[in-house]
């Protein structure tokens, strides 16, 4: 436990000293929020669409920040592998889990800060939520789990390839995850058959649905259970994969 805190704090210090690395995440989210809200908000006047488009697009901004924040975890690990510091950590009695989680939690913390900023901005823009403060808490929790899931993925790629470029490139799954989903219009409105299928199997859809239900519809069991369930499963899978990869490194050399 101490190890996890020590290593998380170390990585966070790095972000504090190099704030530039965290800026793209914020920039993309703010872009979604401002540009799409301004450009597409007419959609919410369509018959059958309820709630504000701001509340609808906010989860997209949050999730895109989350993917970026989570990608940081893999990148910080690649940096350590390349400087040899990762090996130094492997030589120490610190648990492998702590070494990986240090990077993941630091990435997730950065994204939480980003989410607070985005939520703040959305509130300034007039966001109204059906579930109030507790709802925002739920959204933040969902984002954190999503962030850990995606961190696990980027850490897995980092350990597998040991390449900064590949790890950086792996954040491009951002595009299918975000765009093959109910990103800009509700799922019922997706007319293309294949996009509908993709959206159904994309875990992002359930993150969106859960967050939107909180903002727009109030407390509802189904989207929340689905959202938390699927995201937790997703996080477990990527977490286990990355831990196995870390443990295999001794075998492979």
């Amino acid at each position: 436990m101490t190890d996890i805190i020590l290593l998380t704090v170390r990585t966070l210090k790095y972000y504090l000293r190099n704030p530039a690395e965290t800026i793209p995440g914020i920039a993309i989210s703010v872009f979604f929020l401002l540009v799409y809200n301004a450009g597409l908000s007419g959609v919410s006047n369509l018959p059958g669409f309820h709630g504000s488009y701001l509340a609808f697009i906010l989860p997209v901004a949050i999730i895109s920040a989350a993917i970026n924040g989570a990608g940081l975890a893999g990148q910080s690990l690649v940096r350590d592998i390349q400087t040899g510091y990762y090996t130094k950590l492997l030589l120490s009695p610190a648990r492998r889990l702590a070494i990986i989680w240090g990077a993941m939690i630091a990435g997730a913390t950065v994204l939480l800060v980003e989410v607070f900023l985005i939520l703040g901005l959305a509130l300034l823009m007039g966001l109204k939520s059906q579930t109030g403060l507790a709802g925002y808490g739920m959204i933040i929790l969902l984002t954190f789990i999503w962030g850990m899931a995606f961190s696990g993925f980027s850490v897995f790629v980092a350990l597998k390839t040991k390449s900064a470029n590949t790890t950086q490139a792996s954040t491009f799954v951002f595009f299918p995850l975000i765009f093959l989903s109910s990103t800009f219009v509700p799922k019922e409105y997706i007319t293309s058959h294949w996009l509908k299928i993709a959206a159904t199997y994309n875990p992002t859809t359930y993150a969106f649905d859960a967050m939107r239900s909180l903002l727009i519809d109030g407390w509802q069991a189904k989207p929340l259970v689905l959202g938390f369930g699927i995201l937790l499963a997703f996080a477990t899978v990527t977490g286990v994969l990355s831990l196995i990869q870390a443990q295999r490194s001794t075998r492979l050399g």
Partner: protein
Amino acid sequence: MTNIDRSITVTKITRTFGDYTALNGVSLRVESGSIFGFLGPNGAGKSTLIKILATILASTGGSATVGGLDVATKSTEVRQRIGVALQDVGLDPVMRARELLVLQGRLYRLSTKEAKLRSEELLKTVGLADVDAKRKVGDFSGGMKRRLDLALALVHKPDILFLDEPTTGLDPVSRVQIWEEVRRLNRELGMTIFLTTQYLEEADRLADHVAIINDGMIVAEGTPTELKASIGQEVVTFAFSTPDMAAKALVLLQPLVTKVKTSGHEVLCYLNQAAQNLPQLLRVLDAAKLTITNVTIAQPTLDDVFLQATGARLNIDPTKEARSTKKS
């Protein structure tokens, strides 16, 4: 202190990478509290063995214990008891020396206060105490990085210290400082020290016991004195002004020594008790009116041991760093 097991045993360790065999059935024993020199040319398998003993690389055959603990099954316990400075230093370039040391101390279960005290102590030991505290480690010189890396390995006062080529790339002054520090750690704290080197002189000067590895196999083992004694003989080298004279000298000296050979205008004689026998050799050469320009008597070196064991000279030219290895 004396009853702690600080020994290392290696039993038929093998490591393959694909179909390449880096270690081929290596066995050795390092006694508690001794300095062990692991000598070998580039690509011999020195670092591979250190990584296995330090629990970050699995062997593909055989077994090893460090401090009485099996490296494969008791890896966490082994890690707590050893200090390791690998060949490639592992430092986070954006951190400061003190931050790295304190974090390292904490990871080895020291309290924050202990870790801070220890950091200051170690910075003094390795001569980095006066470096600007704000300086990032990435801006350190190669020698400073190496010394900081050594300090990191010592944070928790390990029972057993592994040093992979600790002086490669250091200037002669820093090299002697490292030697002194290694001796002090061994003498004052009773630390067992396992060090690899490509330098014969280093193994000769520091180690109580030496093993020579070539191509993944141990080719010679013993104390430096024993190994040199196994070659048995001293070498007297006569230099003449011409190769012609050297050739004549060869014929004259042949019956008087165990072995003799020419090398340009020099003649090398192998014999026991060179000092006592030298006057007789000189008289013979003088009688034949062969003018000697220089005479040296040399003790056999570990290089000669290596030569005898493998039929090749060790790569001892420090400027010819890292001759390309067989693979990777």
